[in-house]
């Protein structure tokens, strides 16, 4: 066996991480690898730092390669060791602490450094850049005291992500941007304007055309002074004005460098034994600052290292902003020009803006704001420089409208090369997924996720992964398998629901037996779903199985991260009284409840209650007339209202009264996922009815009923169901709609997803156009309420609650050992 060659890598960011993945896939035994990384940690997903900053993810969530990964490949990783010298004659690198390593081949991947504008005060304490985990930790700790002020200099991708993250951490944030519109390098002014509006609605102030003159403060920053004399107070300043490729080390070693380290199409530097990859390189005059090009480079290097002949031709890049709730996509070039044509689509009501720039029927640039679903489709056309003459008329409406019949998405995925990136977050390409599917015999998205991490982070590529499953499994692909409820069955939710009715299955064991479940008693995914289906389908007969409910629904309170619970009583329509508030105050004092908070649902949350105390808390609340608010339930949550005709000078109907009526009518009902409602007294819509599962906007002529809104993981305005004249009519429509959802929804599927799956017209046809059908739904709901409308708190707070209920709230205690007894059932 030949001696392994020595590969030394400087830097352990996303680019070399990818090189090594590819290298070890292609030739596991070719190289002995040593990595030096200035950062004291393993390789993590730098692009996911923004979700860490905002609190949506933790560092552990974004690790790409953990210690085991390096160990399994025999890689030596020096963490926290910065290389200070490269001796190309001796083929040796040395770290600042003296550690040295010899190489046959060297890979430089030093990334880039954040650029700091050298204005006075730039070195004050409290001025941070945004590049690595340390920066994020600094920002998080600066945001801790809450309500403090941050100024972000730079309104590009990084600056805006930092601003959004800090705002989510409770800071007051101002973004200072030199140009006229935000992200001007990626967006045209129209999209920049929409973005600025969306940023402003998050409470972030944006100052454009602003030139920073100095950062003020003695030892710590106190503010930022602009050239026009304005002074903006700040406790922290984030510099996010750009990056500079980190070339110092390479230059000292005598390698050719311009803005970045110069490389040829094989990604070799001026020394053929030294490669460079990532943000530190300059290739054909371009330096890149996004991961996609680095991944393309990585594939080429891995190929070159194993004797291949692939070359790198440069990359076309696209940008997405990772701020939850803002959808924005841009790629290519959209400067105006003689020979260029624009296609623009604007939908002001829904805040959608799309622009395509064409040149001789080829896509040159694309900007999508609001609806970015077709980004990848346009981007592919742009990269391929495909002729779009045939599609031109409908091109802007997206893939679904293109041509006479919708394009087959599977064909589009089939056309992708094996190294096409499917999951950007975890860097998983098509080939890897296909290989995993066939080698490990995977048949569902969940399995692909578990084995490859594809679609395990942000999830936007789930659709692509599903297409790949179809493609790879071909005839063997069973669509049911893909949509199976969980790993315990091959049946999907629809089939299970249909069979429960058809076969009159009335217990969970009966369902599992008849439908051939592959596990003895299911899992935490299917059991709650089955329990719901049975509750909804057989309200009169089915006995709720508490062991199949999540702890929240079992304990009728929300579990908190420390194992305590929160309690939210109902405040009908958001109304309360002195007596209720006093009762809450008394409970808080008596049980030493550490936190009391007004929720986003117009009521009060008491947090940090010990499980053992719950029944006593409920007993006291019950005396004051409170019932459970079901803040934990897949069921009716809140009905928010505004003050309506009772008080408001604009009110057209009694919105408060109607909201209370709906809540009193519908509380206690179980639904596939939670249901939130609101009633606004006029189109000013102060109760925010147009982003709810079901909403009512009162108008002079009656009640406009809305449904299928969302304002959580997704944001979506509602659709109008219909307009009716009387409150009674409105109630009948709403109840019937919810009952239809109860009977046909998939467990955990919110109304907006359900309506999308069924089609809005199907819903309207059954609820609006068919009065008899509507009445039948309404009646079935009423029947089920007879069994559902029992206050769970009162049940459990009774002096002698039933056996099961008592023990749920009592912890076990070790007792002194009893006399040695005969062992009946050794358990293990």
């Amino acid at each position, binding site marked *: 066996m030949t001696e392994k060659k020595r590969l030394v890598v400087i830097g352990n960011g996303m680019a070399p991480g990818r090189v090594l993945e590819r290298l070890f896939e292609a030739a596991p035994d070719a190289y002995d690898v040593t990595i030096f990384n200035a950062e004291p940690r393993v390789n993590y997903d730098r692009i996911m730092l923004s979700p860490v900053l905002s609190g949506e993810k933790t560092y552990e969530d974004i690790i790409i390669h953990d210690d085991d990964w390096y160990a399994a490949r025999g890689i030596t990783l020096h963490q926290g060791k910065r290389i200070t010298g490269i001796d190309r004659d001796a083929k040796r690198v040395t770290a600042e602490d003296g550690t040295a390593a010899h190489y046959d081949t060297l890979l430089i991947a030093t990334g880039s450094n954040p650029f700091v504008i050298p204005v006075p005060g730039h070195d004050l304490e409290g001025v941070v850049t945004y590049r690595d985990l340390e920066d994020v930790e600094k920002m998080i700790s600066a945001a801790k005291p809450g309500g403090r002020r941050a100024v972000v200099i730079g309104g590009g991708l990084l600056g805006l992500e930092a601003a959004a993250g800090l705002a989510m951490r409770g800071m007051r944030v101002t973004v200072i941007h030199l140009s006229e519109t935000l992200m001007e390098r990626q967006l045209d002014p129209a999209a920049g304007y929409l973005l600025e509006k969306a940023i402003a609605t998050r409470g972030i102030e944006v100052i454009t055309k602003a030139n920073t003159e100095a950062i003020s403060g003695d030892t710590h920053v106190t503010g930022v002074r602009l050239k026009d004399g304005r002074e903006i107070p700040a406790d922290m300043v984030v510099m996010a004005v750009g990056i500079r490729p980190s070339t110092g080390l390479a230059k000292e070693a005598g390698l050719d460098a311009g803005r970045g380290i110069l490389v040829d199409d094989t990604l070799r530097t001026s020394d053929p034994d030294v490669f460079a990859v990532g943000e530190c390189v300059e290739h054909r005059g371009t330096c890149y600052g996004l991961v996609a090009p680095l991944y393309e480079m990585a594939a080429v290097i891995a190929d070159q290292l194993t004797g291949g002949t692939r070359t790198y031709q440069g990359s076309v890049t696209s940008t997405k902003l990772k701020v939850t709730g803002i959808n924005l996509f841009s790629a290519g070039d959209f400067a105006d020009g003689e020979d260029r044509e624009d296609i623009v689509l604007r939908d002001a009501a829904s805040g959608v803006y799309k622009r395509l720039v064409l040149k001789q029927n080829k896509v040159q640039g694309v900007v999508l704001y609001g609806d970015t679903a077709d980004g990848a489709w346009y981007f592919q056309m742009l990269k391929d420089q495909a002729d779009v003459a045939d599609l031109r008329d409908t091109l802007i409406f997206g893939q679904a409208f293109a041509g006479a019949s919708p394009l087959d998405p599977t064909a589009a995925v089939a056309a992708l090369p094996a190294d096409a990136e499917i999951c950007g977050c975890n860097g998983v390409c098509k080939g890897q997924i296909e290989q995993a599917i066939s080698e490990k015999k995977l048949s569902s998205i969940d399995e692909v996720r578990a084995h490859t991490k594809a679609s395990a982070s942000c999830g936007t590529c789930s659709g692509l992964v599903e297409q790949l499953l179809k493609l790879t499994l071909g005839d063997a692909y069973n669509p049911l398998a893909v949509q199976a409820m969980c790993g315990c069955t091959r049946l999907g939710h629809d089939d299970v629901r249909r069979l429960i009715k058809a076969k009159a299955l009335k217990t969970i064991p009966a369902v599992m037996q008849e439908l051939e479940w592959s596990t003895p008693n299911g899992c935490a995914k299917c059991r709650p779903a089955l329990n719901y289906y049975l509750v909804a389908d057989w309200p009169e007969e089915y006995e709720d199985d508490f062991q199949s409910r999540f702890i929240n629904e079992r304990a009728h309170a929300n579990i908190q991260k420390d194992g305590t619970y929160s309690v939210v009583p109902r405040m009908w329509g958001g109304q309360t009284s002195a007596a209720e508030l006093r009762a809450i105050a008394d409970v808080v004092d008596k049980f030493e409840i550490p936190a009391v908070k007004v929720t986003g649902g117009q009521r009060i949350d008491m947090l940090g209650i010990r499980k053992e105390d719950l029944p006593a808390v409920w007993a006291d609340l019950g005396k004051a007339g409170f019932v459970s608010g079901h803040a934990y339930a897949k069921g009716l949550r809140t009905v928010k209202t505004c003050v309506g005709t009772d008080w408001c000078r604009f009110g057209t109907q009694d919105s408060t009264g109607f909201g209370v009526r709906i809540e009193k009518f519908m509380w206690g009902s179980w639904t596939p996922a939670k249901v939130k409602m609101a009633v606004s007294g006029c189109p000013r819509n102060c109760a925010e009815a147009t982003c709810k599962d079901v909403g009512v906007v009162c108008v002079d002529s009656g009640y406009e009923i809305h449904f299928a809104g969302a304002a959580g993981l997704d944001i979506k305005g509602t659709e109008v169901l219909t307009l009716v004249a009387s409150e009674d009519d409105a109630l009948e429509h709403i109840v019937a709609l919810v009952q239809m959802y109860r009977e046909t929804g998939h467990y*955990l599927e919110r109304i907006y997803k359900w309506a999308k799956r069924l089609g809005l017209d199907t819903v309207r046809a059954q609820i609006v156009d068919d009065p008899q059908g509507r009445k039948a739904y309404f009646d079935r709901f009423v029947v089920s309420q007879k069994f559902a409308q029992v206050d769970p708190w009162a049940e459990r707070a009774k002096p002698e609650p039933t056996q099961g209920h008592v023990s749920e709230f009592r912890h076990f*205690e070790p007792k002194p050992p009893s006399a040695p007894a005969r062992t009946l059932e050794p358990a*293990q």
Partner: protein
Amino acid sequence: MSGDYVPVGRLDDIPPLGGRCVKTPRGPVGVFRTEDDRVFAVDNRCPHRGGPLSEGIVHGAFVTCPLHNAVISLETGELAGPDVGRVATIPVRVVDGEIQIAIPAEIPRDPVPGAPAAALPKTAARRVAPKESV
């Protein structure tokens, strides 16, 4: 070595496919009953972020953590599936309908009670399923 067995409660107090928490001087222990009346006890803190396992859903001889859905084998204490990590298992027996556990003199546990996940294997800290968390 394990210590003496002490009674902690009655089997009847745990419904089949249920769990209960026992507060011991060494920290909370989760006691679980399977559908076929086998009883298991494990350290009651999920290796991910310390979730109280006794509040999870029990299926087969597994429990799913109530906080972020890690699945833990009650037989071995190991995390199931692609995740890595484990909780200590604790000897348990049922005598005349009474559950007894042997609170060990030394349960292998985190250095500090409630220590953050950083002290644990990094891969164990990955499964977070916000969309299905409640």
